[in-house]
Structure formats: C-alpha cells, structure tokens
C-alpha cells in the first residue's frame, strides 16, 4: 500500500513535466510580444522593454526559458507576475476561497445527490423517481451561466436572502449560493449515478441474504446496498473535486468570487504568461492529488481492489 502511494507520487513527475512544458509552450510561443501586455497602450521605452525581457528571461531561447522556469518552481520560487507581485502570494491568497467554495459545492452535490438518488432508486418508477429524473435532466441541459444568473437574480436580488455577489471576505453564507450553482450540474449526475447503482444492487443476491438474516430494511439498505452502490459515485465525486478545485471560471465570474478561476481568467486576458503557467501547473497538481485520493478511497470501499 505504501509502495503504491510512493509509486503514484513518482508518476506525478512525468505528468508535471509534460503538462508544464505544454502550457509553457502554448503561452510563450504565441505570436505577439509578451512585454506589450505589461506596458499597456502607451508603450515602454526600448530600454525598459529590454529590462523586462531580461527580468522574465524573454531574451533567452524557449528551452532555456522553460528550464529556468522549472528551476524556479523546484526551488519554490514561482517568480512574479507581470505586475511585479509574487505569484506564490497571489495563489495563497485566492486558493483558500476556491477551496472553500469547492468543498461546499462537493458536500452539497454529494449529500443531496446520494440521498435523492437513493430514494429514487428504491422507489423506481414511482412519482418521486420520475419527477427527480426530469428535474435532473433539466439541470443538466440548461447551461451553467443561465442557472447562475437566474439564481443570482431570484435569490440574491428579488428575495434578497443573500448578497448577490461575494465580498473579499468570502464568508460561508456568501459562498452558499455560488456553491449551490457550482454543485448543481454534478448533483444531477451524482443523483442519476446513485439511482442506477442502487437499482442494480438492490436485487443482488447478497441483499437477499441480508434480508434472510432478519436485518431491518433500513440496515439492509444503509449497510449492504448503499456501500456497494457508492463505489462508482465516489469515482465521479473524486474527479469532480479536482475540477472544482480548479475553480469555476463562469460561476466565480457571475458571483464575483475572488478565486483561482477568476484570477486565471484575468491572467489570460492580460496575457500574463508566468501567472497562467503557474496557476495551471498548480491546478494539475491538485487534480492529480484528488485522483490519488479517489483511488485510495476506492480501495477502502471495495476490498476486492488491492494495490500492489
């Protein structure tokens, strides 16, 4: 087991190298002068431009630039963005908000998705099941920005239950609405996945055995059916955690959340190369770790899976 985890960490190395190279290549090989983004419309004097080029290694060939960047990352120095602020500080600033938002969204989609899916699966073909299925289909079909604006308008502006946007503090109550919107689509998927899985398992032989032992319906469902049914759901949730941690550009944009997604979006708009590469690299690492977590959780849920 330990060896498995070590190996998974070793596997991160090529993923990390490949991903950074690709992103670095995409960002810095784009036509156009990177310094133009810093200087703005007025332009800089040639001396300043040359200085900037030296500061960001833009005067070096691509490979050297990349290797210098790698060196920085490995010595925990992500450098500064084009506005001169240390990138590590910016990430440390915005990531907690995104993480908070992601975990809230994940909890919402997991709890509601599994509970609704469980009930729907146990009452297959009845009215609850059918209506939940139709609703989840609508949620999946409507684009996220429509849902986002709609809920912002109804709950934030009309009913005024919460602030329509999130302040710099990003408190729990403020984040609740964006978290719901963020988790909504995945909630629909979790619900459907759980429902299918429950239906599949509820007629399994071991469930009949559990009933024949004299267990109550509740214990049969919670202990025997649910744990077996959660295996595919956990896989989905894990992959989703990685995606959520990456920040939701649209949702963070709608609710003005100062998170990773918003920061990345601004960096792309400003052509802030170092910033984009650093954030994307960071996200890749988060994604890989989330996946590792899922695989370990998977082994815990299903003892038939053993890593060697």
């Amino acid at each position, binding site marked *: 087991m330990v060896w498995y985890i070590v190996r998974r960490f070793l596997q991160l190395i090529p993923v990390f190298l490949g991903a950074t190279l690709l992103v670095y290549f995409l960002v810095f090989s784009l036509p156009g002068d990177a310094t133009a983004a810093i200087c703005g419309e007025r332009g800089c004097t040639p001396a300043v431009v040359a200085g900037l080029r030296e500061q960001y290694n833009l005067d070096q060939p691509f490979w050297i630039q990349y290797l210098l960047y790698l060196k920085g990352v490995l010595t925990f120095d992500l450098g500064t963005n084009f506005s001169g602020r240390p990138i590590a500080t910016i990430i440390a600033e915005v990531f907690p908000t995104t993480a908070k938002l992601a975990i809230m969204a994940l909890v919402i989609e997991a709890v509601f998705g599994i509970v609704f899916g469980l009930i729907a699966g146990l009452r297959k073909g009845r009215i609850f099941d059918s209506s939940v299925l139709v609703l989840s289909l609508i949620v999946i079909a409507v684009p996220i920005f429509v849902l986002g604006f709609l809920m912002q308008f109804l709950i934030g502006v009309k009913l005024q239950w919460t602030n329509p946007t999130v302040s710099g503090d990003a408190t729990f109550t403020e984040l609740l609405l964006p978290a719901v919107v963020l988790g909504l689509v995945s909630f629909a998927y979790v619900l459907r996945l759980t429902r299918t899985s429950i239906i599949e398992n509820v007629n399994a*032989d*071991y469930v*009949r055995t559990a009933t*024949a*032992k*004299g*267990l109550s319906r509740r214990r049969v469902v919670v202990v025997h059916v649910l744990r077996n049914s959660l295996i595919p759901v956990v896989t989905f949730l894990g992959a989703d955690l990685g995606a959520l941690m990456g920040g939701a550009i649209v949702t963070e944009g709608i609710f003005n959340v100062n998170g990773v997604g918003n920061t990345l979006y601004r960096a792309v708009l400003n052509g802030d190369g170092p910033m984009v590469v650093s954030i994307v690299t960071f996200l890749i690492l988060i994604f890989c770790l989330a996946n590792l977590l899922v695989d370990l959780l998977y082994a815990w*849920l299903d*003892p038939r899976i053993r890593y060697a």
Partner: protein
Amino acid sequence: MSTQVIGGTGGNDDGGRRGDHGGTGSDGTAYQGPVLEVRNLCVDFGVDKRWVPAAIDLSYEVRAGEVLAIVGESGSGKSASSMSLLGLLPSNSRVTGEVLLNGQSVLTMPPARLREVRGNDVAVIFQEPMTALNPVYTVGFQIVETLRLHNEISPDEARQRALRLLQMVELPDPEKAFRSYPHQLSGGQRQRAMIAQSLSCDPKLLIADEPTTALDVTVQAEILDLMRNLRNQLNSAIVLITHDMGVVADLADRIAVMRKGRIVETGTADQIFNHPQHEYTRALLAAVPHLGQGDGDDEVDITAALAAATHTELQTVDHDELERRERDVLAQLAGEHTTAPRTGDPVLELVDVAIEYPRQGRVPAFRAVEGANLTVHPGQVIGLVGESGSGKTTIGRAAVGLLPVAQGSLRVVGTDISGFRPSSRELVKVRRHIGMVFQDPSSSLNPRLPIGESIGEPMLLAGEAKGSALQKRIEMLLDQVELPRSYRNRYPHELSGGQKQRVGIARALSLKPKLMVADEPTSALDVSVQARVLELFQNLQRELGFACLFVTHDLAVVDVLADYICVMKRGRIVEQGSRDQILRSPRDPYTQRLLAAVPLPDPALQRERRELRAKLLASTD
C-alpha cells in the same frame, strides 16, 4: 480433508441458544408437530399486468431432523416457492395459502415478527456463495452481524461464537477465514462460510437452495458430507432445493418432484428412486447421466472398480459380493481392447506443451498448463476432465489458437501453430478445420444476429458459400441439429437454452471441421435438455466422423461420450487412457478421488460410494 462428525464444537452451548429468545410461542417441548407445514401454497408473479403462476397449490411438511428434497428443472417453481416461505420474493409477487412454522402462520406475521423468524428460526443457504455474501465485508463481520441481531451478546462473545461456527463447518483456519473477504476464499470455503452464517442462530428450519450447484464434484461431496453431519448433530429440518438427482440421493429422506409449478409426486427417497410413479419422475431419473451405476451392459461399476484399484473393503457391501463385482469389472476391462481405431494422422497433437496467460501490466504471466502431451486421432472423442482451475479450458483454447503456446509444439491437422502470432493469416487458415462450441450458449451467440446468419457466418467468411448455396447449407445444418428451418430468422433470445446450444453446434459444424473443440457445452443446461443435446452430439459425431476434444467437469458426461479420457489437475495431465481404463481401473489417486466424489442417483448405491470415498480420503491423507 477429514469428514468426521464434528464433536460438540457447536452443540454443547445449546443451553442458552436453543431457548425461545424469539418467542416462538412454542416452548420447544410443547409443540410436537412438523417444523414446517405448507398448505395450498400458491405463488404468482405479476408480469405485464397479468398474474403468471410460479407455484400452484403446494402442500408438504418437514419434521425435525428430516431432509425434504424439492426436485425440479429450471422454471419448475421450486426456488420461488421456497423463497416465498420467508417473504424473500421481489415485490411483484403474490403469495397465498398457509405456511405454518412450528404451528405459527408465517405469511400473516407482522413484518417485525417475520424479521425475528428470518435468520433465527429459519435460515437460508443460497446457491452462489460468491454473490450471496456481501463482497465488501469480511466473513466475520457478516456472521457477527447475524449473531448480534438475534442474540444480546457482546461483540467479543459474538466473535468467539463466529469462530466456533467457522470451525464447525471445517474451515481449515477459522481465524483467517473470519478476517477474509468472500473473494479471498475458494468456492467451497465460501459455501462453508455461508453455511456457518446460516447455522449461527441454530435454526429450526434450514432452506438450502441449490447449495452445491456452483461447486466442483469433490467440493460438492465435502459440502454434502458436512450438511449430513450437521443435520445429525443439530436436528434441524432441512428443505433441499436442487435439480441434481445425485445430490438428492445422497441427502434426502423424502422427495417432492416439481414440474411447471406443481408437485407431481412425493415419497420417501427409496420410493422415488426405486418405484417412481409419475412419468415425469421416471423421465427425470432416466435423463440423469449417471456415472457407472453398474446395472446396464455398458455401465461401469465405478464403486467396484475403485474398490479393486485401491484394495478397499466396504462394510456396506458383502465381501464376496464385492469381490464378484470387482472381478466383473476387470473381466470387462480385459475384453475391452478394441477401442476406437487409431488410424490416420492425428488432428491434434500436443507435445510437452506449456501454456501461459501473458503478463498484464504488473501481473506476471501465469502458467496455466505445463508439460501436456495429448494426441487426438481422426474420429476420436477425447474427454478432458478436471476441476475448475485445472487448465482444461486453457488447452481447448490453445488448440484453436486463442492462447499462445509458451513451450512445446501444438499441431493442428498437421500444422504446428505454436509459433504463430494471434490473428496471423496461417492461423486463420488452420482454424477452418476446427469448430468450437462454447459453454454459455446465450452469450456466445450475437444477440443482434438472426441465428441463420450466425450459422452461416463462418462459411461466408471462409468464402465457402454465398447466396442461395449458403442458404441451402444453413437449412441443412438446421436439419442436422434438429431445429425447424423456419427458425433461421429468429433471434437468440427467442430460443430456449437447449435450442441455442443446438445453434452453437450447427455453427461449429458449418465448415465441416476435422476437429471440434467443445468447452463444457452442456453445463448450463437442465438435465433433460442436456441428455437430448448430448444424444444429438453423439449422433452427429458418428454420422460426420469429426474428432472431438470435449472439455467438461462432469465425469458422467465423459462416460457417455468419450472413447479416451484425460484427467487434469492443476495444469498437468495426471492420467490418460481409454474410457474403460480410466473408469474401470483408475491409477492416479486424484482420478480415484474424482470418481468417488460423483454422487449416484440411487440412495443404496450412493451409501457404498460414500463409504468408499471416506476410506479413500482417509488413506491418502
């Protein structure tokens, strides 16, 4: 594995456990009637808004210490009716009639009371122990769960009891079994764990639903021994549901024969086996392929043969009588030197063959067969027998080039295919001489293809025939396997299991193969269907004269079909010889054990066989 009666490991603490903690109303002594009384039980399933009967007007009773066997083929309602006793049927079912457990009506019980009965007064052993145990919990957890549900005991005490139960069902290492997940145990061990769980609350009634169907013969014999011992020890009533007459003969006191939802005949084991009244019972008994019962001309007296080969004395058989039977067997063997003529070049020849499953990722290559030597001559039927995991199917697959040969040479119709890469052109050419029939007829036919096309596909691909010539060939093949020509346009799901396997045989025959590889073609079929398919197969083989490698775990099937038998164990061929050599004079201890484990559909003869088996096991341990 020893099979002695377990002495007091589970029975001596009965004082506290046998009490009426469930509040059965009977104080154990007051009630003297049958444990289970079933009167006019009807089970219907709602299908498409109609009630389809599964069991009609069943009445029977079982007393303490008695084994009632309910025998029937699939669809006879034997399982559904038994599951209905505990309300274990899906919600689209309807149960009427009366079920009395110790005089109390089960069907009208409130749910809470019914839950007390389940697992405590009545326990169930299910057919497939792999799926009947929850895969994500340890065996120990599942037994402790039952124990603590029905008894107010501490977790530690439950653990101790669970360990005693696992010991009682003769699991080699109870501590380890307690900690194991179901997938970490073998099939037989899983079934033992299942039985341990069923017995955990000393049930008054045990319902065993095909408890040995999924197991190998030797394991089946062990489980049956175990159940017999437990019955004697715990004095429970047992309802045994099975389609296997051999199992019935081994265990049952009384038998109810079911057909299409009705009980057609009931009687003691002796009555049913020796004087069957109903024609269906007679047909069922006749269809059972019995291995060496020793009563016909061509039948081999396996019991006598084994006794002779191992110099065993049997208490159940008179000494002189046994000697006479042994002499008969040997005399027949001496007279049987005219086995199938071995002429012509072999169609399949394995010389010192080893077969490996190639390594996948970090899972290393697995050598499934080692040092196999085997020759199949034209027109010869070779039975390849062994238990699951013995490598018999592996040899069958390698012969068709589906698995690479790691070592040695494998010649098919004169061509050495051991060096060929999979899907190479040479291999495709060789495959035209081989037909293959697969185990599961349902999954080996394309569900979206009419069966006529499935049968014709090999000919079309080989460029043998097309257009109207192809249609004619298809019709001819359907005639040969005795299916109506009009079935050509039907889809597999419209056919019964036996009909599907006929299609499988027709497809295998379509290129007029020199060699047929049949991988357990009848193991998924009911006995009466199996008998008809085997008969068809035998006729076709005689008529068309192809050689056949018949892979099976069922020695009785080999007895019927094969001229020559190979016995495999753990990837090696331990013994091979003509049918008569193997059946009349088995030399290898494993072959002897395998033969002794096959139950006979006759209670008296089975008693002899069982004693012989016990002696064999005692001597080889």
